[in-house]
């Protein structure tokens, strides 16, 4: 892990200073008529043709990449749109995408990108700097509620975008911006020649909805949508103008069609895969043993991606506006109380019962899946009831002869844990935690409730005591600033603070700001290590366990290079059907 982190670091730094062409190591450099410098993807030479059978739960809510913000929409669009740069699924490095190269000025505030020559939209129109300008004009338009705008703000200011020439654009940030490359890559380029009219008419929010004829949806990605049947399927054809080639200089992608079947539930996804009507399936930890046994008969391989990014945690309400009695607030604000709870949670039971043994205990906010930013030296809380009781005693809590835990003033420790009832894993974890805390003498009620109710409490009324929740994480800690900065609206235990309520929250704020305005990835990692150590010591979120991610893939593809970060299909254009 250390080794790979080091390599990742070197390449990240290299990328940051604008050394292009990481993937294009082989000479001579292939080219296509009209596209002199395509991106070359490594892999065995493959065959053209065939169909990839994909599947997902629930319908996309839009085909507009700027407005899409849930995975059910971003997933189906990933094959249709591209960003200026992209992350390599194997190394996690940022590589050239639509932009063939970039440079950054000495002060780290001006980035210059050069687009590949001869790029075309799927309808044949050329991709120019004007498309880039249009994309960011849309992103920063106040009338267009989109998620990219929130991420792409530096010190509250939009990034300035200017055109240098037809193939070159310049980005200027108010301050140096650490996660710049990764975030800029997440913004999908949209075609000005198709969308400008609707935008000028103030109709952008209604364009490219799911009721749009698919032929009007034009991107630069390897595929284009040809058919959408609501609640049934999306069909894709290969884009004949795609800008990547294989090592022999043949234009990608290899596979002709993708059929994405839309199903209503997890069960159906699994049946579809087992019935041969889907080529891959995200195996849940509890299903792993069964799938591993059936791999030969079902002609598939189960890949172990190691720890995933998402995890579930318990958190206590520390909000003064929560309407809780003062003594309760004081328990939850006490570091010792939270630490004791962390010691009392039997993470192994959670791992066994919820994840069938395929998970690792987690104590800090960053998943070990993030090889670069994960800090392995944070404080840990292995299951230990004596220790938990001792820590509680230090904070003045005492267990009476009746078995009830009381604080120094004699208040019995009584509270309600809640979670959203539609998530069986969280309900299971909550049940286990409730039993564990009962063993300490706490009187805990566990009351799962509807998702909408939970959200209202979390963001609006703040009337909750403790809750079990999960967030999906990513590789870039800056994406979590809404959770970790004390002013964040998802700073669950005490959101939207005017100024940090505690010294440690102030410290976290400081490290987040520092890391955001630092371009040197090495120093950013130091800042984020500090943050992880503070969180592990203060345990505002008490983490439980982080499950492994498994994917079952039918044995019919060539060039699969599975990685935990990119999954089995990160290099989809070069994947072919054997």
């Amino acid at each position, binding site marked *: 892990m250390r080794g790979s982190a080091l390599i990742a670091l070197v390449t990240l730094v290299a990328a940051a200073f604008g050394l292009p062409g990481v993937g294009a190591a082989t000479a001579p450099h292939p080219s296509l008529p009209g596209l002199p410098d395509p991106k070359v993807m490594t892999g065995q030479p493959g065959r053209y043709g065939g169909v990839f059978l994909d599947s997902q739960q629930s319908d996309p809510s839009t085909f507009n990449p700027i407005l899409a*913000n*849930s995975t059910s929409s971003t997933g189906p669009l990933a094959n249709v749109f591209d960003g200026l740069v992209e992350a390599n699924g194997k190394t996690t490095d940022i590589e050239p995408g639509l932009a063939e190269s970039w440079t950054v000025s000495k002060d780290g505030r001006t980035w210059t990108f050069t687009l590949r020559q001869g790029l075309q939209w799927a309808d044949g129109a050329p991709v120019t700097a004007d498309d880039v300008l249009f994309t960011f004009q849309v992103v920063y338009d106040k009338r267009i509620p989109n*998620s990219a705008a929130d991420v792409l703000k530096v010190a509250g200011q939009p990034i300035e975008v200017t055109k240098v020439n037809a193939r070159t654009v310049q980005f200027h940030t108010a301050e140096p911006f650490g996660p710049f490359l990764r975030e800029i890559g997440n913004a999908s380029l949209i075609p000005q020649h198709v969308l400008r009219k609707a935008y000028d008419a103030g109709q952008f929010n209604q364009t490219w909805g799911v*009721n749009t004829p698919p032929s009007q949806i034009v991107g630069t990605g390897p595929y284009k949508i040809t058919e959408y049947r609501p*609640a049934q399927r999306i069909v894709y054809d290969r884009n004949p103008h795609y800008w990547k080639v294989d090592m022999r200089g043949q234009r990608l992608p290899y596979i002709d069609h993708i059929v994405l079947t839309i199903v209503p539930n997890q069960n159906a996804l699994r049946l*579809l895969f087992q019935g041969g009507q889907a080529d891959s399936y995200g195996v849940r930890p509890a299903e792993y043993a069964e799938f591993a046994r059936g791999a030969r008969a079902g002609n598939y391989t189960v890949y172990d991606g190691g720890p995933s990014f998402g995890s579930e945690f318990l958190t206590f309400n520390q909000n003064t506006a929560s309407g809780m009695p003062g003594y309760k607030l004081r328990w939850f604000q006490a570091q010792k109380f939270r630490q004791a709870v962390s010691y009392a949670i039997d993470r192994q039971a959670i791992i066994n019962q919820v994840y069938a043994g395929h998970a690792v205990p987690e104590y800090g906010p960053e998943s070990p899946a993030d090889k670069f930013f994960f800090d392995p030296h944070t404080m840990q809380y292995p299951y230990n009831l004596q220790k938990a009781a001792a820590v509680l005693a230090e904070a003045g809590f005492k267990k009476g002869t009746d078995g009830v835990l009381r604080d120094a003033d004699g208040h019995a420790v009584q509270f309600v844990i809640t979670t959203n009832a539609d998530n069986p894993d969280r309900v299971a974890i909550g049940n286990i935690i409730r039993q564990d805390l009962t063993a300490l003498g706490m009187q805990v009620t566990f009351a799962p409730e509807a*998702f909408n109710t939970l*959200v209202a409490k979390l*963001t609006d009324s703040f009337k909750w005591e403790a809750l079990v929740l999960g967030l999906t994480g990513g590789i870039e800690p800056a994406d979590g600033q809404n959770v970790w900065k004390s002013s964040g*609206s998802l700073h669950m235990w005490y959101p939207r603070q005017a100024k940090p309520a505690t010294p440690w929250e102030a410290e976290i704020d400081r490290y987040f700001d520092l890391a955001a305005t630092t371009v040197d990835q090495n120093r950013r990692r130091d800042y984020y290590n500090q943050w992880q150590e503070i969180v592990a010591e203060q345990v505002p979120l008490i983490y439980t366990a982080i499950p492994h991610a498994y994917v079952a893939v039918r044995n019919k593809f060539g060039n699969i290079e599975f990685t935990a970060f990119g999954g089995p299909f990160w290099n989809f254009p070069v994947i072919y059907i054997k």
Partner: protein
Amino acid sequence: MIRYIARRLILLGPLLLGITFVSWAAIQLAPGSSDYFQSLVLQYPQISPQRIAALRAEFGMDQPPLVQYLHWLWSIVHLNFGYSFAYNVPVAWLIGSRALNTLLLSVTSLVVAWALALPLGIYSAVHQYSALDGALSAAAFVAISVPSFFSALLLLYAAFWTHLLPLQGLTSVDFDFLPWWDKILDVARHLVLPTIALGVFSVGGLMRYMRTNLLDVLRSDYLQTARAKGLPERAVIFRHGVRNAINPLVTLFGFELGGLLSGAAFVENVLGYPGLGRLVLEAVLKRDVFVVMGSLLMGSVLLILGNLTADIMLAYVDPRIRYD
């Protein structure tokens, strides 16, 4: 008759007004529950409160509830069902893209259920207390006692193990490339499972009704007279008995339609059928208010029209009934 239909159609207006108001009130009742926009923050942690407020304002959801309702009502009068929060497309399009499928499934199950239930019910009544009558009655009782989601689940697994029928959807992947007769065949194959899951419940009930009614009729005085006149038993049963026994069942038709719409929600969710039920369930859980309202309105109109059709049919088949 025409006057009767006209009066019923005029009454439709106030009825729909009542329905929409109750639905709106029901949605607003939710104490301490978030709206669609608030829950975006968990789906997408980076989103700022300003964005959420902007989105809410865009849909007019920053107004007081009663104003929202009146706005909605006003646009309904103009046949505008509003925009879905989650999809940002007109609700009419969303419903339209699925309503036909649900209607197809409902009609198919209705036809299949009646086609099965009537002969079986007649057989049971004519051969009362025979072994087959006993078996059929028992089967009918079991059919009405199994929750529809449970039978749908069991059917799904049966289809999975036998590999005989498609598990999901309404059309195959290569549907668009099929000749027209294969298209029909393809849809028919996809309809088998949902039709069974949805129809089985109705078959049980309808069969019991048919059996009871026919037994009543067969015992009646006028049939005794017909027998006394020397009509053959076959003619007695089919020419007089069955015709009279079916009449009361016609009233059930409207009721059945409503039941099927409800049952379809479960079946569609378990069997992945692209119908209205899936859309509504999702919309209710996400609080996509205009979609919920639009679908409720649609469902109600269907139900009322079904009832009306049943009444009219009844007037035709039963000469004793006269409206006005």
